[in-house]
């Protein structure tokens, strides 16, 4: 049982998963804002990076 719990706590999946979620959020922000035609391109990238970075980092530090 201890081995199982250890795996949950220190999963490397959360590292990969954090990057995956971050990239997905950046992509979504760029797609949606591009579709709506709002903001300048640079603003879209900044918002995408901030939001994607924050959520990706949270996935990692929460060890999801």
């Amino acid at each position, binding site marked *: 049982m201890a081995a199982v719990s250890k795996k949950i*706590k220190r999963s490397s999946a959360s590292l990969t998963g954090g990057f995956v979620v971050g990239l*997905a959020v950046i992509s*979504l922000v760029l797609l949606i804002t591009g579709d709506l035609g709002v903001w300048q391109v640079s603003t879209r990238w900044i918002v995408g990076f901030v939001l994607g970075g924050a959520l990706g980092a949270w996935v990692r530090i929460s060890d999801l």
Partner: protein
Amino acid sequence: MNDSMPQNKTMPQNKGMPKRQAAFREDFRQRIATFYNGPLHVLMIFGIGIAVIWYSARHIDNPAWYDWLVIPVVFFFANLFEWWIHRFVMHRPIKGFSNFFMAIYTRHTLAHHQFFTDHEPTVDSTRDFRIVFFPPYALVTFILIAVPPTAMLIFSGLPNMGWILMATSVFIYLNYEFFHYCCHVKDDRLIKRIPFINTIRRHHIAHHDVHLMMETNFNLTYPFADWLFRTSDLNRGVLGHLFNGYSARQVKRKRRKVIGAADDPRAGIARAPNATK
């Protein structure tokens, strides 16, 4: 369970949490990261999912009647996929592939099923969402699986079908997460009155019986594939399966012999009826 749970021949009653389950819960909760936040976890999943559905819906333009036929087709194959992955990946230790499938098995069979049993299948706080909901990258993976057929339809000159396929796929994923949460929520006063949700709650809690989990009740949305492949604990037709609710009147009585009870470390290991000790 609470007082509102129907009595007799309905849902399994709370028989008291086994010591093994209580110990696992305590250990698991201590290991949940400090920064974890249950509502944020749920918000992230549904935020990403709804954004993709909204984006897909914006690209559907004046669809023909046949474009909508994608919806039942996606529901059908998603139901089979949900059944298959639950039965043959989440409950089977498969080595290789950089431990990708093994990690899924460990999280599900060795963690989720230890945390929730038919004795005590409900959450106590939002921090328990950690073991109810999939991590958000599972949704992203599911979206990526839906991208090739979506792109294929779009580039084949059927863009409406493609975008409906993507929207439906993500909707089904959110449907899965919501129904699964409803299976493990503490207060069932409302849930027990909602068709489909009451059905899947009984269906899934029965699946959390260690004696049944390896072979029975693998659907998490609508128990269609369990009916189709005869892996359900019910002896009913397809409509009876879908609208069964909490009723246990038609639960099959014949179950395979298993070793021990919930506190036995060997519990859940199915044995052939004629196997010797």
